[in-house]
């Protein structure tokens, strides 16, 4: 996964996830505080620069990850720009709504850059440890940890099965595809049951009877980084409020 690749290899990998979480949260708040499309775009540019220039996330990866949601945003914006008259069924361009639509689109874009900043600079285990600090229920965190740790095992199993099925023309026609996918999913469901039973045996053998705990990584200059991110985040919000 491109996000994982970037999250583990960027320049800010060792920056505290709390600092990155605060900056993301401030970015989203600034996007919602923006009074105009230009102000929201300024937030988007600032946060993108923080990710690409500051954290050295490769531009190509950034674009590849951003492309699908941006396409979806374009489609959503297009659907908003048309109005439907139910009395005399007709569709017309909602010209009067254009400033509002541009504002929604730019706000969403700014929020997306904030989300991308977090996902491309912070590995998921760090985000889970951040959620633990935010007092997220242990059961939910356990589900996340188990989900993350088995995700790649199941993905590999799916890829191997698809390769084997494709080699036997399992996806040659739409009908074959549905049948092959059905068998793949059924096989995967059983793997879920078998793997979970094995995992349970493994944790019982290690006397685990509670939440999953892992050693948390040390982040150098954590307080300084949190202060820098909070200052820049709050400055961003204040700038947005001042210009709106």
């Amino acid at each position: 996964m491109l996000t994982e690749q970037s999250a583990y290899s960027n320049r800010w990998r060792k920056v505290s996830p709390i600092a990155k979480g605060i900056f993301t949260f401030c970015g989203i708040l600034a996007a919602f505080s923006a009074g105009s499309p230009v102000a929201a775009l300024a937030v988007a540019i600032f946060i993108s620069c923080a990710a690409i220039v500051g954290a050295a996330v490769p531009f190509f990866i950034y674009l590849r990850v951003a492309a699908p949601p941006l396409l979806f945003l374009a489609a959503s914006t297009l659907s908003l720009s048309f109005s439907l008259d139910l009395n005399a069924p007709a569709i017309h361009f909602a010209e009067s709504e254009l400033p509002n639509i541009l504002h929604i689109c730019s706000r969403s874009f700014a929020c997306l850059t904030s989300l991308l900043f977090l996902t491309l600079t912070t590995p998921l285990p760090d985000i889970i440890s951040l959620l633990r600090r935010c007092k997220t229920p242990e059961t939910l965190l356990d589900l996340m940890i188990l989900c993350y740790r088995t995700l790649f095992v199941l993905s590999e199993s799916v890829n191997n099965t698809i390769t084997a099925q494709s080699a036997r023309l399992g996806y040659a026609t739409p009908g074959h595809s549905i049948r092959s996918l059905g068998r793949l999913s059924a096989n995967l469901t059983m793997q879920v049951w078998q793997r979970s039973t094995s995992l349970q045996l493994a944790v019982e053998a290690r006397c685990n009877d509670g939440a999953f705990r892992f050693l948390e990584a040390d982040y150098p200059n954590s307080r300084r980084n949190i202060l820098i991110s909070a200052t820049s985040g709050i400055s961003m919000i204040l700038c947005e409020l001042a210009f709106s």
Partner: protein
Amino acid sequence: MHIMEGFLPVKHAIGWSAVSAPFVAYGLYTINRRIKEQPEQRMLLGVAAAFTFVLSALKLPSVTGSCSHPTGTGLGAILFGPTAMAPIGMVVLLFQAVLLAHGGITTLGANIFSMAIAGPFAAAAIFRIARSIRVPFGFSVFIAASLADLLTYLTTSAQLAFAFPDPSGGFTASFVKFATLFAITQIPLAISEGLLTVVVMNALTRFNSKELKEMKIISIQGAKA
């Protein structure tokens, strides 16, 4: 059918999160109760979340010839129950937002409501009603999975219509507009996902009915009827 990051106004984002929170909390309560009775359920549900995530990444051939992705809400609700699907769905949606940038954090509440609450509850209810009036097993699974998929997309359309009512026709016109636009992809997808779920359940009941009964998640007695 994800609503993307930052698309909903603040009041709607907070409102949908507040609506979804009790369902997730109740789901966690039932999961905790299950884990106390059967500790192995913790592993099962965790791996089930990964399963739902992987399933949602599969390419599904659509009736119109294009490709789409299954939601897994129908299958998940039938296998693991609708209450458990709310927290599992939350984890899956959060992972999709963080790992794939699909959906978002501010729209998590709205997406949970449509994909992890409305869809699974509808699937479980339709499946139980269909089985209680002796509809054949395969057809019960098909209508449960297909209608759950359709309800998910109608819920998303309603959420968007609430947030962005049409300037001339209000909520109704906006709902018709979004529902019609999404219908192009979602109706074929619902049919494909219904067929896929039938194939999965048939394969499971045929080859692994013992394991399914051991799971004790949903009674499949008379599945082959």
